[in-house]
């Protein structure tokens, strides 16, 4: 194994205009303006090895996409250094781009009105992929997913899941050393999520591609990543093995119930009943954070059903936001 990405003391600052309120404020803004410097990324360092799948987590606005933009060379750091593949990305954007693949959320990079195979052919030329490598890659794709029906469909006609799948295939087409995936499973149904995770996993195994995955979905992290890096407000909070994180959070699940009667009073009463559990009201649901090492979800539900009439219930994995909250509350490291 060798380091493919080396980041040292990386910082990116933006100047943000602070607007005053009201008409008087905007008139004042005409003559004098206050700028606030915001550190989107604050002194981040990490080293990523070839072939790793790294989950890059954090809430919205944490600085994830700014870091990725710097790694892909579209943004110049304010200070600190990045080396991907031994080159400085923003100085050699084009050269760097040859060795990376990017999927950015729901923004497709494929040609909207073209059948997928035509998009692939253009990419083949842009990345100067030779015929053999191209055909080998398509064969590999065929062995992993049922792409033939997709190949002759235009992107316009595809479902969101098919489009995401196609975008991921396109990102791997030139066999890049690193692939950046930004929220690849957002908005997809459970079956499609599983498909996409399987595909990413297989491509990583087969080609030893480094994958940097930003996500909100702990399910993605659980299924794919050996390592997670958590960032919040630009600062790195956590960088370690997923096992360690799982040891800490794996046992946590969120039980959501909707009892009959008034929500607030019921929540209050449940809070008294289940001492030691964190009970909150979230959108119309009473949500209970259950540590399964202390008590099973079914036990808790059973206890509740004795005293309350439960109309509806849901079970959720712990979210990134909860994890970050927990890290703040009692340091994991």
């Amino acid at each position, binding site marked *: 194994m060798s380091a493919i990405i080396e980041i040292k003391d990386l910082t990116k600052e*933006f100047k943000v205009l602070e607007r005053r309120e009201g008409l008087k404020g905007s008139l004042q803004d005409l003559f004098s303006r206050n700028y606030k410097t915001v550190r989107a990324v604050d002194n981040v360092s990490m080293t990523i090895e070839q072939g790793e799948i790294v989950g890059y987590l954090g809430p919205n606005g944490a600085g994830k*996409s700014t870091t990725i*933009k710097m790694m*892909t*060379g*579209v*943004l*110049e750091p304010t200070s600190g250094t990045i080396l991907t593949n031994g080159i400085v990305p923003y100085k050699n*954007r*084009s*050269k*760097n*781009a*040859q060795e*990376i693949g*990017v999927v*950015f959320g729901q*923004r497709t*990079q494929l*040609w*909207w*009105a*073209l059948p997928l195979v*035509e998009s692939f*052919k*253009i990419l083949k*030329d*842009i*990345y*100067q992929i030779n015929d053999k490598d191209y055909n080998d890659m398509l064969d590999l794709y065929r062995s992993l997913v049922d792409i033939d029906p997709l190949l002759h469909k235009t992107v316009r006609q595809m479902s969101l899941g098919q489009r995401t799948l196609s975008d991921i295939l396109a990102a791997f087409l030139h066999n890049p050393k690193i692939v950046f995936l930004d929220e690849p499973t957002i908005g997809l149904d459970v079956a499609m999520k599983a498909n996409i995770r399987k595909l990413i996993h297989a491509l990583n195994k087969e080609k030893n591609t480094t994958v940097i995955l930003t996500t909100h979905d702990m399910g993605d992290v659980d299924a794919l990543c050996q390592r997670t890096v958590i960032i919040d407000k630009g600062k790195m909070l956590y960088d370690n093995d997923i096992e360690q994180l799982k040891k800490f959070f794996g046992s946590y699940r969120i039980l959501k119930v909707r009892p009959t009667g008034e929500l607030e009073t019921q929540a209050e009463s449940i809070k008294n009943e289940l001492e030691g559990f964190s009970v909150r009201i979230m959108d119309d649901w009473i949500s209970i954070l259950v540590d399964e090492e202390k008590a099973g979800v079914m036990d808790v539900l059973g206890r509740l059903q004795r005293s309350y009439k439960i109309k509806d219930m849901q079970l959720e994995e712990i979210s990134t936001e909860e994890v970050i909250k927990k890290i703040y509350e009692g340091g994991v490291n």
Partner: protein
Amino acid sequence: MKKKDLRFYLRIYFKILAQDLKSKMSYRADFIISTIGMIFTNIAGFVSFWIIFRNFPSINGWSYYEMLFLYGFSLIALTPVQCLFDNNWNLRIAVYSGDFIKYCFRPVNLFFYYQSEVFDIKGLGQLAFGIGTLAYSWHHLGLGFDILMLLKLIVFLISASVVMVALQNAAAATCFWIQNSFYVLDLVTRFKDYAKYPITIFSPVFRFIFTFIMPIAFIAYYPSLVILRPDNIEILSLFSPVIAVVFFWISYKIWMHGALRYNGTGS
């Protein structure tokens, strides 16, 4: 990685252009109506030109056919910007929606990749119209014809086109800095319609503005002098290829600078 030479860029260019044509063909009704609309525009432009000048034998020492020559010349010179750089019109929307970033991840020149995405075939009608007008006035002016003249014509037509492309690039790139950049682009487009008039009708101040600040005089007037009045060429006419390259280079730098700067502010 193989070296990216001109052949590489040409091949990609035609591949991407072909995809654009294919997708345009898939909206056939739109394509046909837009083409008719474009032909309408050209005819209307010609008709208003004809109505004005049939009332006057000459303007400022420029005969009807000389004016027609300038008109045809400007139509041809404005074709490349219409056909090849039409994606500049979408730049503003791509930047605001954040879709622009997708152009930044490819191992090819950003400007090239962005512009290659759209080929506006409607501009070819304008080209045909321009060639017809130019040939007609050429014949009536009795300018004669030889290979050297043809070469001159081509060189100076290209320089004229490049100036217009540069103007549009710079205008489109303003969207990286300001909101409402549509007005800037629209303004430049409105002024290109006045490129077909001899710059001598303006006062010195505006001659200066239209030569150096908003160089529409290089779209038809200066370059066509070389063919039209070879005994009386202004020095700026001869330099127009150089000036075109300089303008283009500046506009390219502005465009690229804006593009890379924008990525910092976009989400």
